[in-house]
């Protein structure tokens, strides 16, 4: 059992949620298939433990390291050092203390025992020790130092153990291999250190699922957006989770909304066979067309901070709305709908950046609603707006570089065109009411031509709006 337990523990180190029942199944597989046929064992354990294809890389690399060791660097010639390892060693030599650097190099090369040996000889530098084995505190400090450094070197946002499915998917086999070595190293050090009961890896604080943290998340959702200090990395996965729940609720609501009023004629006809007793009610089937939603997201400097969150919400919203097109603009407009099709939010964000590489006009970052809306109509010329379309604009209506015609900004003419051709044009403005129409804000001109403008104060408002098309109070 210990073999499978140890293997499962190494997978859990990367954040794979392997439950005790899956571990038992894995043990049964191990007993049934045996360890002789490595290929069969790999397939069997994969079937028992893995629950998402996205985690295959982690499983496969850990399996190689654990059962066959063929993935270790020792098997490769020295010329086959990967570019990632090279990059890692380059960073190591620059930004880590020499004694730690040696340990990190051993870990990259898969020489865990050498790393342990070095730790035992070079780390104890005093603190009551006299050249013997390092104390628990010294080891703990080293673990923290090394772990933090490894995360930084590989651009990981959170400790490996806390990685979410989409973050795990981004890990390359090379990073997984080094991470596995780190896990072995930490484990062995922990086994030697009897003075502390602390887990080998210290968790950095991230929002997790403990009641206390969920309370914090709840607070975050209802906190004024202008005062939110949490980073995108900490919140996006949770936003996705919340979005999924809302999407499922919305799907159910829309399904129920499809059954219409009682169809008397068909009910009577159907119940003739029951001697006229109304046992079966027949309801009219309401045909509800999928709403067509066009979202325009202002990503200019002044609203950039909320645009990222809005993008995550849009990414989740596609679970409910099949006909959603998303555009982003500052002084020009691009369509980023293709980014929504990506399987993970991180890839969607990368694709979103790529969409900005090909713009109609040169990007100047400052907001120009006039040019942006002009580009918008160019982009949608093949699929023009219609009365089933709702246009949702997230922006502060600060038309910094837009031109004016007589007494109104030209951009308001485009808004009027949208109002005339669509079902509804809604503008969600994250700025507080007191700032509307001050300076370059043109809110009143947009309201004048028929756009509905609402203040969105919290993330909850944004979620409500996108999932239920509700008007925030």
């Amino acid at each position, binding site marked *: 059992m210990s073999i499978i337990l140890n293997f499962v523990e190494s997978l859990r180190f990367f954040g794979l949620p392997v439950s005790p029942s899956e571990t038992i*199944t894995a043990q049964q597989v191990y007993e*049934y298939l045996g360890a002789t046929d490595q290929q069969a064992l790999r*397939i069997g354990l994969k*079937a028992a433990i893995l629950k*998402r294809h996205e985690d295959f890389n982690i499983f496969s690399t850990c399996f190689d390291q654990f059962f066959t060791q063929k993935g270790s660097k020792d098997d490769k010639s020295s010329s086959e050092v990967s570019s990632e390892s090279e990059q890692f060693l380059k960073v190591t030599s620059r930004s880590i203390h020499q004694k730690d650097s040696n340990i990190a190099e051993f870990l990259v090369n898969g020489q865990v025992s050498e790393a342990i040996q070095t730790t035992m000889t070079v780390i104890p530098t005093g603190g009551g020790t006299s050249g013997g084995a390092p104390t628990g505190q010294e080891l703990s400090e080293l673990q923290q130092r090394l772990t933090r450094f490894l995360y930084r070197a590989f651009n990981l946002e959170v400790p490996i153990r806390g990685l979410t499915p989409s973050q795990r998917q981004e890990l390359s086999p090379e990073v997984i291999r080094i991470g596995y070595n780190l896990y072995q190293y930490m484990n062995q050090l922990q086994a030697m250190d009897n003075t502390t009961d602390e887990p080998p890896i210290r968790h950095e604080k991230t929002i997790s699922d403990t009641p206390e943290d969920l309370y914090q998340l709840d607070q975050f959702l209802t906190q004024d957006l202008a005062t939110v200090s949490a980073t995108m990395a900490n919140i996006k996965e949770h936003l996705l989770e919340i979005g999924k729940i809302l999407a*499922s609720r919305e799907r*159910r609501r829309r399904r129920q909304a499809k059954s219409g009023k009682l169809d008397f004629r068909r009910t009577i006809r159907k119940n003739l066979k029951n*001697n006229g*007793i109304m046992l079966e009610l027949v309801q009219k089937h309401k045909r509800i067309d999928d709403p067509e939603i066009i979202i325009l997201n202002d990503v200019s400097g002044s609203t950039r901070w909320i645009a990222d969150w809005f993008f995550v919400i849009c990414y989740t919203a596609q679970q409910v709305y099949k006909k959603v097109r998303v555009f982003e603009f500052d002084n020009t407009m691009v369509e980023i709908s293709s980014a929504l099709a990506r399987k993970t939010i991180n890839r969607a964000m990368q694709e979103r950046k790529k969409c900005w590489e090909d713009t109609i006009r040169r990007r100047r970052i400052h907001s120009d609603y006039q040019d942006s809306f002009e580009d918008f109509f160019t982009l949608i010329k093949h699929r023009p707006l219609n009365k089933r379309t709702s246009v949702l604009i997230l922006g502060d209506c600060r038309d910094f570089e837009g031109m004016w015609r007589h007494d109104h900004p030209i951009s308001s003419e485009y808004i009027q065109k949208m109002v005339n051709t669509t079902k509804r044009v809604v503008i969600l403005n994250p700025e507080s009411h007191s700032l509307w129409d001050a300076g370059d804000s043109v809110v009143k001109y947009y309201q004048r031509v028929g756009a509905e403008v609402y203040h969105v104060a919290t993330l909850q408002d944004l979620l409500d709006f996108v999932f239920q098309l509700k008007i925030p109070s």
Partner: protein
Amino acid sequence: MDIDLASHSYISTPEINITIKLALQLNRPILIEGPAGTGKTSIAISLANALNWELYRIQCYEGITVESVIGEFDYRRQLLHIELERQKPHNPLHADMNLENIFSRDFFIERPLFLSFISDQANVLLIDEIDKSDEEFEAFLLEALGERQISIPELGTFKADNQDQVVILTSNSSRDLSEPLRRRCLYLYVDFPTLEREKEILAVHTELPLDSPLLKSVTKIVHHLRSLDLRKVPSIAETIDWANSLIHLGKTQIDTETLKDTLPVLLKYQEDLLLIKNKHSELIRLSTM
């Protein structure tokens, strides 16, 4: 137990074979995920054929209810029974009527899940496209998959005692399935086949020899198309259709004109056809390499 899926036109892989063996040995359901058109459903059908077991199939859709997979009471029969009891001379209205058994199995219309669980015969239960169903339905399945039992309040709990039963769930990942459901299943991911495996599949379904130039060209073109950013990549079934279409047209090789004329068999969206509009000769060149 040796399972010969190939004799039932399914070209399997070691991964599929071992996972099926484990499912039979450990009595666990299999959750098969993968892109649409990679042969997930065919695994269950071929397995039932290969083992000569009965196949029960539940096709999931949005709004599928527990009643439509377990069963429901036939209220028409119940009503008739009540009428019959009422009209008995010694049984005046509402007095001493024998209504206790109207919630027995005699009045119950049994549906695939129930039938599969109570069957003495070895069987394969296919729950197809589970991702299309709602979360409530998925939650209902947990008892059936985990404890291998189903509970009907009026009838009690039915435990599947038959050890010769395999439950296969398929999903296209159009919705993320819940962790509890995943935990109860063995997991199998079926991706598009490799070039060699697809050739074997085509050879079985088209009766073309494995070394046929047409077979080689078809698989190469299809593989190249799958690598493009298409709205819908060609499935195995569409590839077979395309190969058969070419055979019916009497083609032994693919030229630009033939490719242009027959591509709609493979690509079902105008935007996909437009995307490769100028790449026909390149595809032909690739297919002969």
